């Protein structure tokens, strides 16, 4: 009897696609927000919210579409990313709806703008758009490596995106930060999209330059300093993030860009000296800006002791209110709809939405949310580890690193751990740009993870295998 063995080392053994796991998790991700919605409605109005059926159906349909697209076009993608994003987005909608019901915020809006408009329906619309965009990315972007071609175009695009809000007539100054542009009645935060576009540029540029950056350097005081021509873009990024900060009053975005760049540089070159240089540069930049920009100073003062200047400074009052929200929530929280986080005022459903989580869901809820975010980050890093091409690795770690930094900066800001920077919590906060950009981010991570986990194509049948077959005597 003779046995035929395949001598190629790479087998076509399929990894489980885990699509059914994803579907099951998605079911939870839809049902949990529906229950949350019912809960909030019961506690605020004493009856089930009227839009419950449409809301539930809407979220379910959107999640279903997203799942089908993934099943069809990214079969091997990571199964956790989509359900977690759906869950966060769904709970975010409930939080926004709950804040819409606040009489206090309604009166505040009426007094300041003459009218109050609900944010939840708009957020629902943006969620629909975002999932469409998510599907679009997966359909169009069959392979993330295509993006390498757009390295320098991305650089230009990100610069344009960042500069847009400063252009007179286009930019809109809202509460002191010039990070919005308004086009035809819609306001967009280009910075949110710039985050992704610039990651493309970093990944493409660093992939090409990594050897030059890592090896062609002189040793100086224990640090490896790169050559001037390699250093150019780095200094440019540093200067750009400073400019963003100075002209747009946007501490968060500049910190995000710079942090993302340092992370990617470190991963690309494997040289610790970059971390040191990056830290030195950011400390330098922060000192300069801290000494010159008054609003940054105000935020640092508010961070040091919000209650010392509580009645005098708006920055202190906001942070103080937010911290008291968290404190009043305690371990188990007051329950959906039963807190007073709306005392924070205008930013309650955007920058400070996490304070509502803190007050109404308590320590338990906040930890659950942080762990969900942590899971997204972890799946992102895992995708980077699994990716087979350096571009994919860099891209994935860039996006997940930026995501992690954003979570840290926003949550840390509202909890008083670090000075407030004025960014929004991904998926939770009210705001179209944020929802759209973060769903694109998830789509890209799903695409990279799909490529990473996709089994290698089966080897072409080798014509030699017939001849080298060994025949054993029986």
């Amino acid at each position, binding site marked *: 009897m003779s046995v035929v063995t395949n001598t190629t080392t790479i087998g076509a053994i399929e990894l489980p696609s885990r699509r059914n796991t994803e579907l099951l998790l998605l079911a939870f991700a839809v049902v949990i927000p529906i229950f949350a919605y019912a809960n909030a409605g019961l506690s605020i109005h004493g009856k089930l919210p009227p839009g419950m059926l449409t809301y539930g159906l809407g979220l379910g349909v959107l999640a279903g579409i997203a799942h089908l697209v993934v099943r069809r076009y990214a079969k091997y993608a990571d199964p956790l990313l989509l359900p977690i994003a759906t869950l966060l987005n769904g709970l975010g909608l409930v939080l926004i709806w709950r804040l819409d019901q606040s*009489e*206090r915020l309604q*009166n505040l809006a009426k007094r300041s703008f003459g009218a109050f408009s609900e944010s939840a329906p708009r957020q629902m619309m943006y969620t629909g758009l975002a999932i469409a965009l998510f599907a679009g990315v997966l359909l169009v972007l069959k392979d993330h490596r295509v993006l390498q071609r757009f390295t320098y175009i991305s650089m230009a695009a990100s610069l344009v995106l960042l500069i847009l809000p400063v252009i007179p007539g286009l930019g809109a100054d809202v509460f002191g930060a010039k990070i919005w542009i308004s086009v035809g009645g819609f306001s967009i935060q280009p910075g949110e999209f710039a985050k992704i576009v610039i990651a493309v540029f970093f990944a493409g540029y660093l992939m090409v330059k990594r050897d030059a950056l890592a090896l062609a350097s002189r040793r100086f005081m224990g640090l490896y300093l790169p050559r001037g021509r390699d250093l150019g873009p780095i200094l440019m990024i540093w200067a750009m993030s400073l400019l963003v900060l100075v002209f747009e009053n946007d501490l968060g975005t500049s910190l995000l860009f710079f942090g993302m760049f340092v*992370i990617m540089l*470190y*991963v*690309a070159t*494997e040289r610790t000296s970059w971390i040191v240089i990056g830290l030195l540069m950011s400390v330098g930049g922060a000192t300069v800006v801290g000494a010159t920009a008054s609003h940054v100073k105000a935020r640092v003062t508010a961070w040091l002791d919000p*209650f010392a200047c*509580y009645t005098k400074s708006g920055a202190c009052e906001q942070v*103080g209110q937010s*911290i*008291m929200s*968290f*404190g*009043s*929530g*305690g*371990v188990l929280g007051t329950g959906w709809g039963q807190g*007073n986080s709306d*005392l924070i005022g205008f930013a309650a459903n955007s920058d400070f939405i996490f304070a509502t989580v*803190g007050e109404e869901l*308590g*320590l338990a809820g*906040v*930890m659950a949310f*942080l*762990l969900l*975010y*942590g899971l997204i*980050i*972890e799946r992102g*890093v895992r995708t*980077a*580890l699994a990716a087979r091409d*350096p571009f994919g*690795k*860099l891209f994935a*770690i860039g996006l*997940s*690193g930026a995501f*992690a*930094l954003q*979570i*840290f900066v926003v*949550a*840390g800001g509202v*909890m*008083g*751990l670090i000075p407030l920077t004025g960014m929004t919590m991904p998926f939770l906060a009210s705001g179209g740009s944020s929802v759209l950009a973060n769903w694109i981010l998830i789509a890209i991570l799903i695409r990279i993870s799909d490529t990473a986990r996709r089994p290698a194509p089966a080897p072409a049948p080798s014509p030699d295998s017939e001849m080298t077959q060994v025949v054993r005597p029986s």
Partner: protein
Amino acid sequence: MNKPLRRISIFCGLLVLALLVRTNWLQYVKAEDLSTRKENRRVQIAQYATERGNIIVEGKPITGSAVTDGSDYKYKRTYLDGPLWSPVTGYASQAFGSTQLESLEDQILTGNDDRLFFDRTIGMFTGEKKQGGNVVTTLNAAAQKAAFDKLGEKKGAVAAIDPRTGAILALVSTPSYDPSVFAGNSKNDEKAWVELKDSEDKKLVNRALRETYPPGSTFKVVTAAAALENGIVTDINAPTDTPEPYILPGTQTPMENHASGCEKASLNEALRVSCNSVFANMGNKVGRDNMVKTAEKFGFNNDKIDTPVRAFASVYDKTMSKDGNALSSIGQFNTAATPLQMAMVTAAIANDGKLMKPYMVDQLTSPNVDLIEKHEPQEMGRPVSAENAKKIQEMMVNVVEKGTGTTARIKNTVVGGKTGTAQHGEGNKKRPYAWFISYAENPDGSSPVAVAVVIEDSSADREDISGAGLAAPVAKAVMEAVLKSNKG
């Protein structure tokens, strides 16, 4: 590239960990501190989120709650007859905080007290809304009303006590304020508040408990008690060795007498016509330290008289010179007393020397009127022996029967009292204070009421006439009200 990737993943993990630690710090370790901070409006929001319990006088609430619209605070405090009762209740305002009973019994009134835990838990299951408990006071509505009406437009205060138990029967301060007008947090509330706060008449001050006045001649009963207790005088009808004019010890200044016939007058006679010289002489003989001792037994120099609303400390100076002590013995110089303090003095004498601790909260009850706490009358001390108390009673009755206090006489009732007009201001320039302290007896000799009245804007210039003319009728009205309600 995987090694730095792993390190970055650890870094990201640390970021999330830092957030987790921070949220535990805020929501577990610092939660209590943050949720009760004075900046935290949730405290007031919760305070006014449910109907507040009531303060009750003779079974009827003198407070209430009303729903307010367009405000963070759902319920607003209302008061029945606010100006009449505000010295008892204090106020509870959404915008301006709370005072007195409203503040001290806030936990019961809001229903947050631990002793109401069961009610809250049961309410949670039966779906009943949270309610506050009630505070049942000792006050006598008729006496309170009589005092308030009699004081009328005049600036003054009345404190009345049941000598047998220490229960406060009336607590009036005029001109008064209506706590209802600033109970909310609207523009109108703020206007009313600012007006009251800056009012020239200090309307928000509870004069009965928290304002001290020189007690003037009414303090002579304390001096008499000290003289008897220290054996300076044993027979109240025996002549004393007081010369006319009496020169203040260590000075050239003669003590001014408004009454005549004070030379060598007996204690009884001296109190009847209110001789300054005799009591200055007695106070000097008793000596400063013994005077302080007796005064303190009556409650002077005690800054912890909680009814439960804390009364200001009345003062008898411990460090003054001899002439100061002689002046203080007739209730001038540094001596200062709250109306409550003088009511306590009167009550101790009327109760045969036993001073009962004054109190105005009789019971705390749950929303469904289950008893949570009941006050038991407590003895504060015995400033005079029963025997000497009887002697002072005899003297005080003499004052009302045949002396300066005849305007307080009540038909068929034994009444003891003492008038007073306290000089006030540098060189006696400002208007004096008219005082009257008195008690009334039941047929069995026990006394159901002791009362102290002070009126600030007396325009009289002769000692004791104003006490009798202005203050005594108020005291009489209060005593009559109490006697009448006891019979009925």
